[in-house]
């Protein structure tokens, strides 16, 4: 059985044939959430609408590079993030970092936020990095699905606080009302699964130092 084509994929196919109705539909579907995203940061309605406007133009100009396997919403949010960053830098609100790999949003390379970096500074191939990232993302997604199915929401919260928020074990334990030992056990199991995935997929361990930090420390 062929995979069902997602409605967003069909919409993008129609936009690629130059259909104004399809473009209008995409704007209607996504402008509200994009505007909320930008406005939560800028707090200025007119400037926020300008950034959203640039986001839509950025989407159309980058459309030849868009891979429809990537969720459309995430793709639009990533463009909006870059346009927002540009705006904040122009306004002097966001400090510019020397040799920043996220220095500007020009170039239309929206496939991954990291792919906007200058090619000369990339030590390993972007294709390889993308493959590594996809493999680990799939592994984490599978684990989250398994936890959801079992109703193990606390483990999802625990890993999200540890890895996404970067919280310390003791803060996670206090936030979730569990012991530090439980947090350490959950973390150990999660890392062991990811290490196993890295081994099975024959990925380079050196590019996931976080997964081997304890081994190197001992």
């Amino acid at each position, binding site marked *: 059985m062929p995979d069902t084509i997602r409605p967003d994929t069909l919409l993008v196919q129609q936009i690629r044939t*130059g259909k104004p109705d399809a473009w209008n539909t995409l704007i209607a579907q996504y402008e*509200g*959430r994009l505007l909320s995203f930008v406005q939560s940061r800028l707090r200025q309605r007119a400037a926020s609408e300008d950034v959203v406007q640039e986001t839509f*133009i950025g989407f159309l100009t980058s459309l030849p590079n868009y891979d429809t396997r990537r969720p459309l919403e995430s793709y639009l949010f990533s463009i909006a993030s870059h346009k927002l*960053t540009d705006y904040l830098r122009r306004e002097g609100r966001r*400090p510019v970092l020397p040799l920043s790999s996220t220095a500007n949003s020009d170039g239309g390379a929206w496939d991954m936020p*990291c792919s906007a970096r200058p090619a000369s500074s990339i030590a390993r191939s972007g294709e390889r*990095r993308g493959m590594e990232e996809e493999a680990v993302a799939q592994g*984490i997604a599978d684990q989250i699905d398994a936890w959801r199915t079992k109703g193990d929401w606390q483990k999802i919260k625990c890993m999200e606080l540890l890895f996404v*928020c970067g919280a310390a074990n003791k803060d996670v334990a206090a936030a979730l009302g569990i012991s530090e030992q439980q947090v350490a056990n959950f973390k150990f199991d999660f890392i062991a699964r990811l290490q196993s995935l890295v081994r099975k997929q024959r990925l380079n361990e050196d590019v996931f130092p976080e997964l081997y930090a304890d081994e190197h420390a001992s």
Partner: protein
Amino acid sequence: MKTYFLNFMRTNMPADFSNAELEAYLDESLPVERMAAVEDALRQYEALEQRMIAINGRRDAGVHSVGEIWRRHRLSCPPREQLGSYLLGVLSNEAADYVKFHLEVVKCRYCGASIEDLRAQQSAADAGAVTSRRLKYFQSSAGYLRRQD
């Protein structure tokens, strides 16, 4: 739980920004108030700028972190339909509790924006403004619409 974490976030000194937070800052996906805190700290503490440069260097060398992969792929973000169900109060207690955690503790900016949009749609008080905004976006961008063969 929420109060504890809000206090944790507030009392965190600039030097205590985690690497995960700094990565999120670079991707413009850190909660808004923390984005502002990082920006303020960057102007005051050179050491923080050096940490940012180191993170960029690590990324440029192709080194991954679990947090940035998780965040970039939005691996735990509830689907939009589930956010709608959350607003309608029809999710199971456990699922609703997780959505609340994701919105209020993790403070996911993308899901926060989505839920604000859904709330606005429910109220539909500014329908005229929405129509005129959409028309403006369409008119300003339709010139870039091209048939791609």
